[in-house]
C-alpha cells in the first residue's frame, strides 16, 4: 500500500504540483495593496495626536455663583446627572404632562418644580456654554429646543442674536 501512495505523490511531483506558483502581475498587485493600506491608514495618521478636547460645560452662571459651596448641587448628584440627565428629564416630562405631578424631591430632600425651561435653565442660564458644549462634542441635536425656549428671558425680550 505504501508503494502505491509514493507512486501517486511522485506522479504529482512530476506535474509540478508541489512547486511554488508564479504570481501574475505581482508588482502591480503589491503596489495596489500598499496604496490601499495608505488610503485606509491616512485618516488615522493624519489626525494622530489631534484628539478633540473633552468638553467642559461651564457652571459659573450668576445664579450658581450666588449659592454657597454647600448649596451648589443639582437635583441629583453630579455623576448621576452627567450620565442620566436625559432620562431624568424624560421622567419629569411624563410626570408633569401626563400625571399632573409638578414637584420633585431630590437627593438633598429639597423640593424642585419639574420644569426644563423654568427650573433647569434658572441655574444653567448659559445654554451655549453648558448644554450645547457636550451636545456639539458628541454630535447630538436634542429636539427639546424646538418647543422649549433655551434662553427664555432673552427670547421674551426679543434680544436673541439668532433672530434677525
Amino acid at each position, binding site marked *: 500500500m505504501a508503494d502505491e501512495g509514493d507512486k501517486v505523490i511522485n506522479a504529482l511531483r512530476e506535474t509540478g504540483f508541489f512547486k511554488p506558483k508564479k504570481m501574475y502581475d505581482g508588482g502591480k498587485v503589491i503596489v495596489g495593496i500598499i496604496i490601499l493600506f495608505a488610503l485606509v491608514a491616512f485618516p488615522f495618521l493624519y489626525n494622530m495626536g489631534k484628539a478633540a478636547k473633552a468638553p467642559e460645560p461651564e457652571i459659573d452662571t450668576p445664579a450658581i455663583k450666588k449659592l454657597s459651596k454647600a448649596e451648589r448641587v443639582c437635583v*441629583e448628584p453630579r455623576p448621576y446627572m452627567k450620565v442620566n440627565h436625559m432620562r431624568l428629564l424624560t421622567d419629569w*416630562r411624563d*410626570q408633569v*404632562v*401626563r*400625571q*399632573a*405631578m*409638578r*414637584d*420633585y*424631591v*431630590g*437627593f438633598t430632600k429639597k*423640593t424642585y*418644580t*419639574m420644569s426644563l*425651561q*423654568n427650573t433647569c435653565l434658572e441655574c444653567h442660564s448659559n445654554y451655549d456654554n453648558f448644554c450645547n458644549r457636550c451636545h456639539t462634542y458628541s454630535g447630538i441635536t436634542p*429636539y427639546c429646543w*424646538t*418647543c*422649549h*425656549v433655551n434662553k*427664555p*428671558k432673552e*427670547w*421674551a425680550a*426679543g434680544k436673541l442674536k439668532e433672530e434677525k
Partner: protein
Amino acid sequence: MTDINRREFLKIAGASTVIGLLGGWKAVELLAPGELEAKYLPKPEALTAKRWAMVVDVKRMDEAIAEKCIEVCHYIHNVPDIGDPKREIKWIWLERFEHAFPGQLQEHMAERLNGKPFIVLCNHCDNPPCVRVCPTKATWKRDDGIIMMDQHRCIGCRFCMAACPFGSRSFNWGDPRPFIKKRYPEYPTREKGVVEKCNFCAERLAKGLLPGCVEVSDGALVFGDLTASDSEVRKALRRHFAIKRKPYLGTNPQVYYIV
C-alpha cells in the same frame, strides 16, 4: 460532631437566631421604599376637582372683556398670531351665535343675541371624540375631565381635528415662533407639525391659579368643580338656564353658556 449534647445544641441554635435576625433587619432597612428614592408630588397649593367645567355668562360678557380673555390666553401660552385664516392658531376666540350654536337657532331670537359675539374654546367634552381617534394617546382625558394634549407625543396626523365638531384644534403648518408677538418666557412654544388647543390652563391649576381667561373676565367666566354642589359653576347653573354647544352630537361639552 455526631455526639452533641443538649447544652451545645441550644448554644448554636441561639447564636444562629441572633445572626439571622441582625441580617434580616439590615435587609429590611436596605429594601424599605421611600428613603432612597426620589419623589414626584403635586404642588400642595394645586387646585383639584372631580370634574372641571366652565360657565360663560353671556349677559356679562361684552366684546371688550372677550378681547381681554383672548389676549391673555394667547399671551400666556405663546399662541402665534399668523394672520392667515387658513393657518391660524387659536385657543379661545369669538363666534357668532348662529355659528357657535347651529341647530339651536330659533326663528325669533331674543334681540340682544343678534350679532353678539360668543366666546368659544375647547369644550373639554365628557365624551371626547378627539381622544377616541388619537392613534398615539397624545390627547387624553384626565381624571378631572380636562382634555390634555401631550405635544411630545403628537405626530400631527390631525385625526383629532377631523373628529372635533367645535373646531377647537389648530395645526401648526410651520414653525410658530416667528409669529409670536408677545412672548411669555415661562411657557414653551410649539413646533411645526403638532396640533394644539386650550388646556383649561392645566399649568395654572397645578400652581393653584384659576385659568387666565377666567381671571381677567370680571366674573363673566366662571370656573369650578361640577361635582361639588357648592362650587361657583354649580351655583351659576342653579340660578340660570344654560345651553351647551351642539348637544345633539353626544360629546357632552363642559362649557356652559348662560344666554
